[in-house]
């Protein structure tokens, strides 16, 4: 493990402890020299119904807060991971967001085409290790049919292909979640979703020859075919001079019908930045990092996230406050016992400690149960989102949520000093006589 990881872990632990310091300090000061546990247990048991309800209320509110926070981060990670393979995307000028959604998340969009000369320039660039044209627009069932090169298919699946790579036009590699078998044949439809035209490509038969490994991205539902096939199905030149019979790059600029997007990968990190500068040209090409577009989105959503966290914390504090109010009402039910303790000579701080411990026990069990509920909520939400978007979302509870919980515990344990103090102000003799 690298030192950086260790120190980050320690930072998180240190921060958690720091957030818990008010709670720990309060506990230490209130409880110093006393052992009120048997009494606290007795009171908890006497009011077990109300106590269980309070714990449940706190657990639900904490669990929802934690689940949402974890889910939000999981979604962010999942979408970022989906963009991992797309270092740099070059398209015709337009909206980066639209182009990003079209290439990374396979959302249908009308996009301009890059011509053969541009393709040549990109593919021939010194810094480019892999350049792949993408051709969208056809579909089969819920799957987008994307024309590209075998190099890109291998790159996308990290080389994991069951079956075999395509060797000829009319062969396809399917994503891990496509409901087709190797050996199956299908006819792609023109268009995607509601705009689909099933009969446009009536005579085109494509045979599945291999399946790509799971990537955890919407591409798991895509069907990849040689881009030449897409071009030919649409009655265009196939990227090569007639009679060459080539499949894949290099393409002949003169016979290149155009591609809406080119994915570029370079081995050196700096090269991506240089390429972006180079292919950002007014009215010609647009080059962008899908990761940066996502980061801008997260940036916009970042404020929302902060508001959300704050709202979650405030909601939980309110729930905790109402629980404490309930506690205070409960404490009127055991004011005789409190008065008795005073009559027996118990110091005020001891009585205070008993009432505070009662509240603290409810809050802590609620918080712990809430943490478990949060883990559960997050994993259920993650499964739902993954099923609906094909973006593999894992939402483990992380340090942010632990910190959040620590703040909650500290704030509410401090708040529960209030009912404890109020209980102490009740006169002893009335308590004994009531």
């Amino acid at each position, binding site marked *: 493990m690298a030192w950086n990881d260790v120190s980050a872990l320690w930072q998180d632990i240190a921060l958690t402890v720091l957030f818990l310091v008010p709670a720990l300090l309060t506990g230490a000061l209130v409880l110093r020299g*006393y052992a009120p546990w048997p009494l606290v*247990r007795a009171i908890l048991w006497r009011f077990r119904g109300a106590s269980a309800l309070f714990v449940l209320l706190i657990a639900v509110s904490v669990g929802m807060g934690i689940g949402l926070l974890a889910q939000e981060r999981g979604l962010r990670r999942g979408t970022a991971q989906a963009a991992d393979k797309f270092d740099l995307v070059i398209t015709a000028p337009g909206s980066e967001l639209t182009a990003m959604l079209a290439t990374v998340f396979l959302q249908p969009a009308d996009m301009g085409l890059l011509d053969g000369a541009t393709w040549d320039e990109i593919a021939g660039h010194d810094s480019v290790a892999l350049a792949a044209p993408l051709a969208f627009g056809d579909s089969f069932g819920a799957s987008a049919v994307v024309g590209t090169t075998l190099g890109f298919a291998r790159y996308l699946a990290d080389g994991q292909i069951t079956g075999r790579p395509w060797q000829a036009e009319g062969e396809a590699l399917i994503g891990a979640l496509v409901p087709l078998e190797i050996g199956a044949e299908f006819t792609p439809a023109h268009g995607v979703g509601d705009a689909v035209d099933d009969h446009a490509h009536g005579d085109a038969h494509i045979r599945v020859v291999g399946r790509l490994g799971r990537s955890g991205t919407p591409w798991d539902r895509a069907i990849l075919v040689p881009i030449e096939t897409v071009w030919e199905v649409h009655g265009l030149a196939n990227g090569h001079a007639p009679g060459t019979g080539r499949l894949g790059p290099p393409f002949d600029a003169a016979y290149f019908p155009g591609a809406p997007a080119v994915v570029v990968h370079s081995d050196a990190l700096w090269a991506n930045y240089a390429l972006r500068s180079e292919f950002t040209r007014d009215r010609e090409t647009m080059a962008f990092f899908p990761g940066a577009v996502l980061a801008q989105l997260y940036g916009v959503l970042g404020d929302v996230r902060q508001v959300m966290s704050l709202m979650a914390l405030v909601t939980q504090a309110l729930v905790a406050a109402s629980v404490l109010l309930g506690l205070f009402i409960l404490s009127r039910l055991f004011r005789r*016992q409190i008065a008795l303790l*005073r009559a027996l000579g*118990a110091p005020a701080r001891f009585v205070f400690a008993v009432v505070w411990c009662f509240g603290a026990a409810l809050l802590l069990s609620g918080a712990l149960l809430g943490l478990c509920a949060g883990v559960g909520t997050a994993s259920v939400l993650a499964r739902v989102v993954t099923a609906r978007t094909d973006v593999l979302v894992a939402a483990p509870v992380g340090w942010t949520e632990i910190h959040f919980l620590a703040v909650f515990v500290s704030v509410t344990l401090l708040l529960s000093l209030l009912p404890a103090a109020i209980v102490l102000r009740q006169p002893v003799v009335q308590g004994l006589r009531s």
Partner: protein
Amino acid sequence: MTGGLPVSVSGLCVTGAGGRVLLSVSSLALPPGALVGVRGPSGAGKSTLLYALAGLIAARGRVCWGDTDIMPLSAEKRARFRAGNIGMIFQDFLLFEELGAGDNAALSALFLPRAQRRELRARADARLSALGLGNHAGRSVASFSGGERQRVAIARAMASGAPVLLADEPTASLDRGTADRLTADLIGLVRGNGTTLVVVTHDARLIDRMDRVLTIADGALVSDEAAPHGLE
């Protein structure tokens, strides 16, 4: 056991809401180890006297237990004084139903310094044994009869080795036979330890066992007489 504490009261005045005088005792002195009954009509101020002696009520005047005048003390210091010197018993026992007899009797151990907890527990167990509950210390008091409960309360009041025991109608919730047996046990224990006992009661059989009987009416001490013991 070092025996009881004497108490001397002078100029004690307890006022209620609106300045009404609830209790006024110009002078009262009880020797250490005395068994004192307090009787009088309901609402006359008997319990008020008891709470004033315990330092649980705001009042003017002096209440000196031995050398300590508890009146000028803060609520916290009075509580500390009670913890070491005064045990209290109530009509309806005021036990924690969820705890065993032993834990109830040793309740004060929860707020005592760690070093004194063991000693207090031992004394609580000894008191329970003396009161015939030695084999039931672990049982939850929820299953106890009234007489057993009041015995647990007595053990609790005397677990700290307090030289003073204040009792508020200790037999009022018990049937006659149970009350008599409890009275006998209580007096036996108190006499054995030399504890000063002040007991507020309507129970004539209990009053009969006292050394001295105070009568309170309309917030004033109207009679203070030595009582002949029913037995001996």
